[in-house]
């Protein structure tokens, strides 16, 4: 390698640290989307008939739907027929312990900085790692099962706990909810399943790391979290995807069900490949996430740090059905170069005395476009309900855009909705103040941006918060000057 090549290589690898891929033996379906593919997926996964029927039903619905175009996004044509809808690392045999895991896989984890071993030993986090849609290593299972907690891959849940899956699947997000939810329902490959029984506080953060690996495979994760009465769980989702030239579609669905007095905290750090500096490549991320506070006094809290993807279309929402239930949404969305994000939340107040809180911090740099889109809906019988929304935008440079689309829809006179919004630029004054104290410009911006996003970052569990702060700085690297 010539010196120039090396410099170039070092530079580009700095651009996106997780941009590499490991060659596994891949078992992959031919490109294309049709009923046969839906059947193939279901068969590969040895699913019961009711689930196949459910998928086929979703596929019928999907065929009648159109790609949504209301978001503030320029979405290139996506050819769904040119995507493969199933790929799985070849199963060699049943894995009993980490020692039996494919060393290539362990390498993958290590490059990601999430060696399962370390995770196990140091932080007490149980990791259910999903690689190319089929989950491989699940740890801490025994410890959790003593408490009656179920934490496993979605496929495993279908086999081992079919009644639970059947009861809740699609109840929070019906397949007809939207185009991408319907697509996911038809072709979802795998994902995570979590059930916390009555009265149990999950003693550790449950964590899933998603990762797109094989080229040209769409990712259609499906996650279902059920918190039974008076239970508590904190769930972490981290995503990274290797660098690819072709755009890749990602359409996940996450459903959360909280029974009375239950609390679910769901945190995401999303770091899919954003495309290069010229806007080439990158993940298209169309996610449907929704939780229902079904019982009285229940609470669902979404926290997200979105730094990746070429396009983000994502609105983690709460349906506040139980009386006194609480929904929260904390978000930091960073866009740089040619990234586009249209993200926010929906809070639907149905029960009495329901409360919701929205804190959204958008950061735009380069030529990117960053939109907050949020809806607060207070239904007729949701008396004495409250919402507080704070939507801030921070701009770095003059070529990027920040937009806010709040929709407020109140049908109850005793309820109150408060909305605050600010747009600011990183001040020259602030940067000079930092420089005068000996910091360089990159550190100065990282410090200012992390301060700006602090109200959201502090919602994250400790280890995640540190990682998120690093990601923010990394994403904005080279965005000023």
């Amino acid at each position, binding site marked *: 390698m010539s010196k120039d090549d090396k410099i170039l290589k070092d530079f580009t690898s700095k651009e996106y640290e997780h941009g590499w891929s490991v060659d596994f033996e891949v078992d992959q379906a031919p490109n294309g989307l049709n009923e046969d593919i839906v059947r193939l997926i279901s068969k590969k996964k040895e699913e019961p008939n009711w689930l196949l029927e459910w998928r086929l039903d979703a596929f019928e619905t999907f065929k009648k739907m159109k790609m949504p175009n209301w978001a503030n996004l320029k979405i290139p044509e996506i050819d769904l027929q040119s995507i493969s809808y199933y790929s799985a690392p070849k199963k060699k045999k049943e894995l009993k312990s980490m020692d039996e895991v494919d060393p290539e896989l362990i390498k993958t984890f290590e490059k990601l900085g999430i060696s399962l071993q370390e995770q196990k030993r140091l932080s007490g986090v149980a990791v259910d790692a999903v690689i190319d849609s089929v989950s491989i290593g699940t740890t801490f299972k025994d410890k959790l099962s003593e408490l009656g907690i179920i934490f496993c891959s979605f496929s495993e849940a279908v086999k081992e706990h079919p009644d639970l899956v059947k009861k809740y699947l699609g109840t929070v997000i019906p397949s007809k909810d939207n185009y991408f939810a319907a697509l996911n329902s038809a072709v979802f490959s795998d994902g995570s399943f979590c059930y916390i029984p009555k009265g149990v506080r999950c003693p550790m953060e449950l964590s899933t790391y998603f990762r797109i690996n094989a080229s040209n495979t769409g990712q259609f994760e499906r996650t279902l979290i059920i918190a039974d009465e008076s239970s508590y769980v904190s769930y972490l989702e981290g995503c990274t995807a290797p660098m690819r030239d072709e755009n890749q579609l990602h359409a996940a669905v996450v459903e959360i069900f909280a029974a009375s007095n239950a609390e679910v905290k769901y945190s995401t750090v999303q770091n899919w490949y954003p495309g290069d500096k010229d806007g080439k490549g990158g993940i298209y991320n169309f996610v449907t996430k929704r939780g229902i506070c079904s019982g009285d006094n229940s609470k669902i809290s979404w926290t997200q740090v979105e730094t990746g993807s070429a396009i983000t279309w994502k609105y983690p929402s709460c349906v506040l059905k139980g009386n006194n239930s609480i929904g929260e949404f904390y978000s930091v969305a960073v866009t740089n170069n040619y990234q586009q994000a249209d993200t926010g939340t929906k809070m639907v107040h149905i029960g009495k005395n329901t409360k919701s809180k929205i804190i959204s911090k958008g950061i735009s740099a380069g030529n990117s476009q960053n939109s907050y889109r949020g809806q607060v809906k207070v239904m007729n019988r949701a008396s004495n309900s409250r919402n507080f929304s704070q939507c801030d935008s921070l701009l770095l440079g003059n070529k990027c855009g920040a937009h806010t689309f709040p929709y407020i829809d109140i049908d109850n006179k005793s309820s109150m909705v408060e909305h605050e919004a600010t747009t600011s630029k990183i*001040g*020259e*004054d*602030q940067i*000079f*103040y*930092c*420089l*005068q*104290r*000996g*910091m*360089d*410009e990159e*550190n100065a911006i990282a*410090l*200012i941006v*992390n*301060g*700006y*996003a*602090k*109200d959201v970052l502090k919602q994250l569990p400790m280890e995640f918060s540190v990682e998120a702060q690093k990601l923010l700085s990394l994403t904005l690297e080279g965005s000023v000057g």
Partner: protein
Amino acid sequence: MLKIKNLHASVEDTKILKGLNLEVKSGEVHAIMGPNGSGKSTLASVIAGREDYDVTDGEINFQGTDLGELGPEERAREGIFLAFQYPVEIPGVSTTNFMKTAVNQIRESKGEKPLDAVAFLKLMKEKMKLVNIRQDLLSRSINDGFSGGEKKRNEIFQMAMLNPKLSILDETDSGLDIDALKIVSNGVNALKSKENATVVVTHYQRLLDYIVPDFVHVLIDGKIVKSGDKNLALELEEKGYDWIKPGN
């Protein structure tokens, strides 16, 4: 330590400094006085390397180095500290965090290891005493909702933390009541040594009762028009600036 020769500087094509000369040696305290708008803060910013200001002529030499090519962060690492007339708010960033980032980046630039949490805390505790500043203030967003006095005290705290060679205090006395003025001055005096130097910018004589200058300079219309000892400050207090204005 600091040698400024024939300095001309402008902002957006407005000439503000018009041939300024100043020499500061280690161990000295210099006061720069002058009416509002005469260019005192501009001088401070230009020494610190703020990029909005164009140096159109002359040079600034610091410890034998021409500062012309150095960015503000490099000048800071060489030991130039500016206590701001209007300290800047950074929401969500505590003074503690701000200082930890600064201290460690300066150390890193010198090839030193970053201070660990314990050592940093120890340093903080020691310097907090100097300016009588409380921990809870340092845990709040820097300068955000601080009173005038708290902001100035915080600047001197930062100065103590960074232990600079040349400190420029821009109107550090404004907004301080007499007790705060004493505390801040005591802090500044405690940090004084034979190895460092202080430039105090003010337009009130009162501060100079507490921080006693070796030299007093009068800056009018971008130039130093008169220099003297501390008695010059007393004279200015009494007679104002008009009698020394060029042309009078």
